[in-house]
């Protein structure tokens, strides 16, 4: 009878396809999928072991870098799930059941673990055919749990590689301590630290399973049950006491829709990072109305790294990774471009300055021509201009088009005007040259 290898058929079958898919590395020098970070070596049994191992790897990370211990990945159930499926694969169903029950002691309302437990118990009374073997089980709910298992196991197996960073994090401003990158295809949220000691390169801290909109990503209109794609930041911290149970242990609204979204006519609002209602440990990969949802324990861990008004939250449908060399190259190129823009403005050579702007430029109701006319007029009255840029951040906008979001504190002084503002620009590469398509105060 087939019964006993049931989960293999259904679940690991799915994984086999996915396991080969490496993170999309847009670099020439993709390195071996090495045993990379010390974090990925965690293989554990039971709660205590998890804690112990997590501590161990935390300590290891610390000793490697001589820095403060940081949040450690794999604190979720992934390691235990991986172990359970390994036992099932080896047809050691008793072990699998024990591990599942240990997992449930840790997370009593973890539905996926309950389902696996149900299967393992049912397998003791009758041959069963697949994942979620209950006769007449609601197919949609089983499919949700299977999807969760698949993405969690993939997330566990495919940690970001050392020396690769998400392409979006080109430059964080010094007071941005962390950045959040969400990969909707992988149902994964990555926390990166702004490693100032290493020139502000992003350093991987942890990753977590997340839920996105019921209908996926690339939000366009209100009510489309999709999660937006773009560069945002945390705008508020709504404490648990003020929230309905649905939002779990907390909520952090993000700045959707941003200036680019508005230009593109994207609608809707109220996109948050938030927790999970009390009746379940986790939600399926696609279940929200567009929010990014974490388990409560994960939200609490991530929340420690969030700064209201500062922490970038970049949501991509499929994160691109750059080798550090390539990342440096892109970053330097953009820093140079921005510096040229600054210098050209200071030079009062308006035509040169205007070359930095796209013909498609639009901002504050002005077209490029209107904007250009105004600049020519204003600059004509200037005897000198001093322009300083501070707290620069540069984030690449996820997507096919080359767009970056540039934010900085602008200190403008001239013979007849002094002005300090926080400015945001969207630059797009046109025919190989970066051009500003939007700018305004941030």
């Amino acid at each position: 009878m087939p019964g006993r290898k049931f989960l293999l058929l259904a679940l690991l079958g799915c994984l086999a396809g996915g396991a080969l898919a490496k993170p999309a590395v847009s670099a020439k020098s993709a390195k071996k999928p090495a045993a990379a970070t010390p974090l990925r070596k965690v293989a554990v049994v039971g709660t205590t072991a998890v804690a112990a191992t997590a501590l161990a790897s935390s300590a290891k990370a610390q000793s490697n870098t001589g820095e403060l211990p940081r949040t450690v990945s794999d604190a979720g159930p992934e390691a235990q799930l991986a172990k359970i499926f390994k036992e099932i694969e080896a047809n050691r169903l008793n072990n699998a059941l024990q591990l599942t029950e240990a997992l449930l002691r840790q997370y009593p309302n973890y539905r996926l673990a309950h389902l696996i437990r149900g299967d393992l118990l049912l397998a003791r009374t009758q041959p069963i055919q697949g994942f979620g073997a209950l006769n007449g089980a609601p197919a949609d709910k089983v499919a949700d749990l299977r999807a969760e298992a698949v993405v969690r196991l993939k997330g566990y197996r495919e940690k970001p590689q050392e020396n690769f960073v998400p392409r979006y994090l080109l430059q964080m401003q010094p007071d941005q301590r962390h950045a959040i990158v969400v990969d909707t295809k992988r149902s994964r949220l990555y926390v990166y630290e702004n490693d100032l000691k290493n020139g502000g390169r992003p350093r991987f801290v942890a990753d977590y399973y997340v839920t996105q909109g019921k209908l996926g990503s690339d939000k366009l209109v209100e009510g489309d049950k999709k999660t937006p794609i773009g560069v945002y930041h945390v705008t508020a911290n709504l404490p648990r006491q003020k929230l309905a149970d649905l939002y779990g242990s907390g909520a952090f609204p993000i700045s959707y829709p941003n200036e680019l979204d508005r230009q593109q006519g994207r609608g809707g609002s109220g996109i948050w990072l938030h927790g999970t209602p009390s009746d379940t440990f986790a939600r399926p990969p696609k279940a929200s109305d567009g929010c990014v949802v974490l388990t409560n324990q994960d939200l609490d861990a991530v929340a420690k790294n969030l700064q209201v008004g500062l922490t970038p939250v970049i949501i991509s449908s499929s994160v691109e990774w750059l080798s550090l060399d390539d990342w440096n190259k892109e970053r330097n190129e953009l820093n140079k471009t921005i510096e040229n823009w600054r210098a050209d403005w200071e030079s009062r050579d308006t035509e040169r300055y205007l070359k930095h702007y796209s013909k498609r430029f639009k901002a504050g109701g002005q077209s490029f021509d209107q904007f250009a006319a105004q600049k020519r007029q204003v600059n004509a009255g200037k005897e000198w201009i001093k322009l300083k840029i501070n707290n620069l951040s540069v984030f690449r906008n996820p997507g096919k088009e080359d767009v970056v979001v540039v934010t900085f504190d602008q200190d403008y002084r001239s013979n007849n005007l002094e002005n300090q503002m926080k400015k945001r620009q969207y630059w797009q590469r046109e025919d190989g040259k970066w051009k500003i398509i939007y700018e305004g105060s941030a």
Partner: protein
Amino acid sequence: MTSTPLPRHRSKQFQTLRALALGLAIGFSAPSFADNLPEVQRLIKQGQYPQALEKVDAYLSSRPKDAQGRFLKGLIYTEMNRPADAIGVFTKLTEDYPELPEPYNNLAVLYAQQKQYDKARTALEMAIRTHPSYAIAYENLGDIYAKLASQAYDKALQLDGSNAIAQNKLALIRDLITTGKGNVKPTAPAAPVAAAPAPVAAAPAKPAPAPTAAVVAATPGAAAVTPKPAEIKPATPAAAPAAPAAPAPAVANKADNGSDEVAKAVAAWANAWSRKDMKVYLGAYASDFETPKGMSRKTWEDEREQRIAGKAGKISVTVDEPQVTINGDRATAKFRQHYKAPGLSSSTTKTLIFVRAGGKWLIKDENAR
């Protein structure tokens, strides 16, 4: 004497776990129930629980440690719907006599009644650990696993607690009650098969039993030397065809040596099946064998071929000693069949009807219950 079915409410009360052990299979107690334990048994059967309790208390006053007496007391409490007291008695028994599987089993039944399936499971697993061949516990454990699975699915899938597994089980029991196939209730006569090295013992996973088979399993055969309370013998009502066959000294029908030949035919048939020797296996069947569902002989043979020779892995078919009745050239062999194959093991009661042809006993009809 055929055991009188216990009062009807019982069958409902125990529909979660059908098999309550009604006696202890301990071999040293013969002297003790020369006293008044049989009387207690009788009162229990008559439903006179307060009187039974009084008697058993009197009995225990002089032998407070006596396992049989305490066991009966636990049963009386169970019948009187005093589960907490019953649990107390059986728990204490498991502490004092950890080697006995029956108190664990009955604890499990009581826990299951209270929907404490995890505790029930632990108790049954203990019963099996102490007695790997304790068939009742396997039967009950199967039910408990199903219950636990059902609960797990409820939690996983947010069902309303009436999912298919639970429904199947309950429907199954209703069916038994209403189709008049006889009593569903645990007519279980004490006696777990202490000595029988039933293959089922090695295999916790078993297929969903057919309704009757499930009931049968609740009446395992008497072990050879089981001094159980006198009047509770293996029941053989219609629904409990097990009458299982231990090498009981008094199997009445076993008169002539023809029965040995039939028994040998059964053994050869099971052996061929185990060896996947299709020629010998199919040769054990008479040419006018009554194929199931009236399928053609060819279709049936093909199906058997596919299920036996075509099956990956080892098959083991063993049978307990058959109970044979011979009537001229016809013989009926009834026995417990233990089947094991990768992913499946089952024990069923089987009846083979043989006809004598050319000095050989061939199978004319085959029925699994």
